[in-house]
């Protein structure tokens, strides 16, 4: 039954030996059973939480600065002159990845966490008994992309997936959305932590201070240095509208972006010093003194002043907006059906989204109920992620060293948690089908084959990994191969294994 293969290969992450048999009775029921409840990591890698990691990185950074000060023999006054704002913002500032591999306390403190997260993710993909739910986790991680190539979030990029997405992937979209936008990795990635309202308490206090000091006698230091201007940063607000909810053609304007940025001023991260002290270090913290007060009008609706609640009210409305339903439905259908999403399927999924107010299991059910998703032709070219995870499953192995996972994705061009932009990795073949990329797949396949061929029968493996999709010419090629290792490489590179 080709439907079994579709459920396991297209909706899931590829077949481990036995997976096809397990799904064979009722493939749709096999899928539906997976989308209940949170989706914890499978595997056994202990991971630190985002607040622990942020706190450790902050400590490492301060220790390094202390050392630097001592070795430079700078006076204590110079240190004190750095304002509370400056030192706090430095905590999460962009450490330029362009820096040489010299001593970089932030990167060094982050690195083990990044590696552990990457390994845990690969193990989970290799071992999970809910591969459809796991694929959905990956889908949402990519939808709400944070990129570890920004130095400030390098070691917490993976925590967004584990802390904000896994608990809500089979819940309501609004809860997923709020959890993501209030996750410290997202706040830091899109620079919202020090976005300040012009009429916020902090800005007013600073203005009064400025006025007082202007009246009081001669200026002492830094006369020519322009003072820090308080204001908003639009980044998070824009990407929520453009990439997370309405979509770029969702009907908002620049003025909506600006207003929304004002609404979420104060959405920040705990820790800091002086006027920016407060909250639990490394956790989401609403800084009332940064928040732009007052009622604000967004997309024609007025939101009364409600502190943190004002932004949450906006997210709640965005989460059930028709443009959001359509945008999410389009992306889901593109991911599961075809690069050019069939309109009928998009329509069905969008309707389910709207009708249920974004109840995700019912949205997924509409996808499963779409006949287009069960077309026998494999229309999705696997991404490197798909390719690696399905290979692990086919070979029934789970990686134990972070290095092998990190290097694999490095070679294949999809460094984990590093899409490079808030739009996430592209989800169409034309972004992955370069000739150079194909050669890298061949190289990786032959390396993996060399390592794991022992005791494997490639023809059996074809049956257990691609089932009825195995073509006669592939099986013949496997039989004729000059070695088991070569046969395995051929299987992994066969069109039926490269697609889903």
């Amino acid at each position: 039954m080709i439907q079994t293969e579709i459920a396991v290969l297209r909706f899931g992450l590829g077949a481990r030996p036995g997976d096809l048999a397990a799904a064979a009775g009722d493939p749709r029921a096999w899928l539906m059973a997976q989308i209940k409840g949170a989706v914890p990591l499978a595997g056994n890698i202990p991971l630190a939480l985002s607040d622990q990691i942020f706190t450790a990185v902050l400590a490492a950074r301060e220790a390094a600065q202390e050392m630097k000060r001592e070795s430079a023999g700078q006076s204590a006054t110079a240190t004190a002159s750095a304002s509370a704002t400056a030192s706090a913002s430095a905590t999460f500032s962009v450490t330029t990845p362009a820096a040489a591999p010299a001593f970089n306390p932030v990167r060094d403190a982050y690195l083990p966490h990044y590696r552990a997260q990457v390994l845990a993710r690969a193990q989970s993909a290799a071992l999970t008994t809910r591969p459809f739910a796991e694929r959905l986790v990956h889908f949402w991680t990519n939808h709400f992309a944070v990129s570890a190539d920004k130095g400030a979030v390098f070691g917490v990029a993976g925590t967004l997936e584990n802390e904000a997405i896994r608990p809500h992937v089979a819940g309501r979209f609004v809860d997923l959305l709020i959890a993501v936008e209030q996750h410290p990795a997202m706040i830091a990635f899109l620079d919202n932590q020090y976005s300040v309202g012009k009429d916020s308490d902090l800005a007013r206090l600073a203005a009064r201070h400025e006025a007082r000091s202007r009246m009081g006698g001669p200026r002492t230091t830094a006369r020519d240095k322009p003072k820090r201007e308080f204001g908003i940063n639009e980044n998070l607000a824009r990407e929520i509208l453009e990439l997370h909810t309405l979509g770029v053609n969702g009907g908002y304007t620049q003025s909506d972006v600006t207003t929304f940025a004002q609404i979420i001023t104060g959405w920040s991260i705990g820790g800091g010093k002086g006027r920016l002290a407060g909250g639990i270090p490394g956790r989401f913290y609403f800084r009332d003194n940064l928040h732009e007060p007052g009622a604000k009008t967004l997309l024609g609706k007025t939101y009364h002043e409600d502190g943190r609640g004002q932004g949450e009210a906006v997210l709640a409305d965005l989460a059930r907006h028709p443009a959001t339903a359509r945008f999410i439905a389009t992306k889901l259908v593109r991911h599961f059906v075809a690069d050019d999403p069939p309109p009928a399927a998009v329509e069905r999924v969008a309707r389910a989204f709207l009708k249920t107010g974004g109840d995700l299991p019912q949205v997924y059910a509409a996808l499963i109920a779409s006949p287009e998703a069960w077309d026998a032709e494999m229309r999705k070219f696997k991404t490197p992620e798909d390719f690696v995870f399905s290979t692990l499953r086919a070979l029934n192995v789970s990686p134990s060293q972070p290095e092998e996972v990190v290097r694999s994705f490095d070679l294949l061009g999809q460094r984990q948690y590093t899409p490079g932009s808030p739009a996430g990795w592209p989800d169409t073949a034309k972004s992955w089908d370069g000739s150079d990329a194909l050669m890298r797949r061949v190289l990786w396949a032959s390396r993996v084959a060399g390592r794991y061929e022992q005791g494997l029968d490639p023809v059996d493996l074809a049956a257990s990994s691609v089932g009825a999709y195995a073509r006669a010419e592939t099986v013949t090629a496997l039989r004729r191969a000059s070695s088991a290792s070569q046969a395995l490489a051929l299987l992994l590179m066969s069109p039926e294994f490269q697609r889903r």
Partner: protein
Amino acid sequence: MHAYHVDKARRRFLLSTGALAASAALPHVLFARTGGSARLVVMILRGALDGLAAVPPYADPNYAGLHRTLAIAAPGVADGALALDNTFGLHPSFAFLYERYLAGELVVFHAVASPYRDRSHFDGQNVLENGLTKPVGSADGWLNRALAALPRGTGRPGERAVAISQNVPLILRGDTPVISKSPQATPDVDEDLLARLADLYSKDDWFSARLSEAVQTEKLADERSTQADAPAMTAPPAAPDRVGGVARMAAALMRSEGGPEVAVIEASGWDTHANQGGAKGALAQRLTGLDKALRALKDELGPLWQQTAVLVVTEFGRTAAVNGTQGTDHGTGGCALLAGGAVRGGRVIADWPGLARTALLDNRDLRPTLDLRSVFKAVLDEHMRVDAKTLASRIFPDSSGARPLQGLIRA
């Protein structure tokens, strides 16, 4: 021929840079076209480069007040701009580019933008690359469409353009085959395995086409392999900027026998919403990397630099005013660069709208006064000898308002 922007710029530069500006006034016909042996490198800076930092309009009375801590000081003071003329400078990180400017091999465009007027990176990049006025509507890129219209050149058919990346970016996608090659060293794949794969793909056209392309590219790269660009595969995710290696690889491929005449390079990391820095800092480091990459490109091209034009473009500019987090948000007008031995440079081309509040677009952005397509068309016309009709119809449809600039390429 009417060329409004150039006329305006020329007027300014007759006043400011004398001789060089005067030569800009010579009629187009006097300049032989590069053609045949011409090389073109397009470098896409993804993330929206701050044109007001890269090319500071230091003499604009509103510049320092808007860009504040991110502003580059006027020439002559420490960390000041490298003077291009009485209005504009280059960021102090651009040592190589400044040399080229003084050597008459760099044109700087300012207040320039693609036709895109919203502020999404992704749509902005689509418009930059698809050559249309809208982000959707074309699955191929203008540079690929231009390839089909190139006169016969030195590159092997099917290999006349290369994307220095694992996959082909939109600007080079389309019906004309191109190759992609990334600078990380890929050890040779067993030839027997490749032969068997070719057999395995024989009934699958899609895979078949890609594999034969990949095998061709490998051969080409083997003929001209460079030692310099083989970083170890152990780089952690916060990887050092690799654009220098990418540029060297592009040059090495281009100067190989029958190698590509056109290359596309991408560099990311320009989306400076926070802690952008000024003469020093995060953006300055990026700009230094870009400058070094361009120097590496020239060095590696050797004599071929004389036949080369390098276009450096980004999807849009950034806000004129600094934001609340010592950075800049998405804007509209910005800068673009055209460098190379084939370029008739030493000029700034800008119909400068100014940064007064009333002059800004939507009260926030540098207002564009020059369409990037006017630059693209000029380079394709004068340098690559693509005929004007095809340029105006197939390559840049709906671009009648964006007439090609003239005299950008030397005799």
